[in-house]
């Protein structure tokens, strides 16, 4: 099974420096008030590297913040801010700052009922850090919530026998109810 197409995957930025965002406009103001207002200053145009201008600016602001500060920005963030923080976790320098503490943010997003947060939580950071049981439950939640499995970075690599069993049980439950089984579940049901 192959992953979905990933435009620009070859030059996907690995660090905030590679994003090329200019955040000098925000210097000298409290991060708690600057971070929410980023989109109103830089817009959300696509940068052509898989990031939008506001996502890149927010990631760059995070690279100058501490671990506790990032957790607090997430705690008080609106949906766009939380999505930007979750996305930034895949960057090497941000991952270095948050360490294992990023897990609490990912788990918070997985607990929500917002498909956007759920999908954003399951990026490369979750692939590397999320315990197997949590990962399996999160994937199954994607199936329930209609998040395409192609959006989950850790699939198919982390699809172990237990996850496949859970998927098969889910499919059986759906069929018993006369309901359809999501298309993207099929590859996991075939053996």
């Amino acid at each position, binding site marked *: 099974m192959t992953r979905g197409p990933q435009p620009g995957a070859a030059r996907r930025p690995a660090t905030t420096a590679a994003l090329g965002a200019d955040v000098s406009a925000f210097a000298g103001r409290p991060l708690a008030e600057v971070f929410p207002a980023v989109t109103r*200053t830089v*817009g959300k145009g696509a940068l052509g590297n898989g990031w939008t201008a506001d996502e890149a600016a927010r990631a760059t602001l995070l690279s100058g913040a501490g671990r506790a500060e990032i957790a607090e920005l997430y705690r008080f963030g609106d*949906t766009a801010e939380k999505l930007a923080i979750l996305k930034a976790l895949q960057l090497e320098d941000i991952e270095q700052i948050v360490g294992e503490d990023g897990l609490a943010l990912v788990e918070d997003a997985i607990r929500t009922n917002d498909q956007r947060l759920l999908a954003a939580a399951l990026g490369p950071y979750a692939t590397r850090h999320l315990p197997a049981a949590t990962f399996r439950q999160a994937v199954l939640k994607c199936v329930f919530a209609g998040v395409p499995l192609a959006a989950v970075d850790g699939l198919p690599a982390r699809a172990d026998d237990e996850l496949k069993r859970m998927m098969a049980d889910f499919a059986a439950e759906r069929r018993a109810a006369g309901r359809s089984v999501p298309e993207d579940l099929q590859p996991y049901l075939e053996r």
Partner: protein
Amino acid sequence: MRIFDPHIHMTSRTTDDYAAMAAHGVQALVEPAFWLGQPRTSVGSFVDYFDALIGWEPFRASQFGIRHHCTIALNPKEANDPRCREVLDVLPRYLAKDGVVAVGEVGYDSMTAEEDEVFAAQLELAKRFELPVLVHTPHRDKAAGTTRTLDVVRESGLPAGRVVVDHLNEVTVKEVADSGCWMGFSIYPDTKMDPDRMVVILRQFGTERILVNSAADWGKSDPLRTHATGQAMLAAGFTEDDVDQVLWRNPVEFYGQSGRLDLTGSAAEDTFAGNSILRGARS
């Protein structure tokens, strides 16, 4: 008929309400932060509530094609509880958010010294964050409360055009009209205002600087009262354009002063393009 409900508490409403609102032309709304019936006793309760206003509730509204914005403040009733006072300290974080288009609801409930202080402090925040203000007028002693409200607004130095004084009626409208502030009317099934009384006021005061809302919440109220008022206006001889001004263009103009209205995907996109944060930098 396209409708922007400038004051409705969706947190208390069902998905059936969202569906009915969308079916009756409601495409955008503002949900002011207010009290919830059951008093709160800690800052944490407010923070979770504010998070819902900028997170879960816009998400719920979007499923019905409705653009959701909110206003944030410590409301006057709970301003009297010392346990809730610290809410003032977390307000700046929220007043910086994209979905927050005004400071509110502020104003008076029982006209205490505590309410005075909290009202004045929040008018200062409105200046600092360059936001409009939604002012609640008290249910008891309404006329005196409205006069005092206008005095405080005047003393604050905020431009009158950035302030809406809400829950007006036949007794309080004149003073607010003369002040230059926007006039807000809540159309309720039994109390406050009804569609026919609203029509009489519109005949007398015109259609400018007037906001009509349902203020629907956890009490007996009706999220379709805005639509009913539009129908009553048409039946009374107002034009479609008059209705559009009152139920759509006026709230867009008032809350548009925040620079944060995002009406992408709604009928307003063509008529108010400059205000969509999705369109790029505003600088």
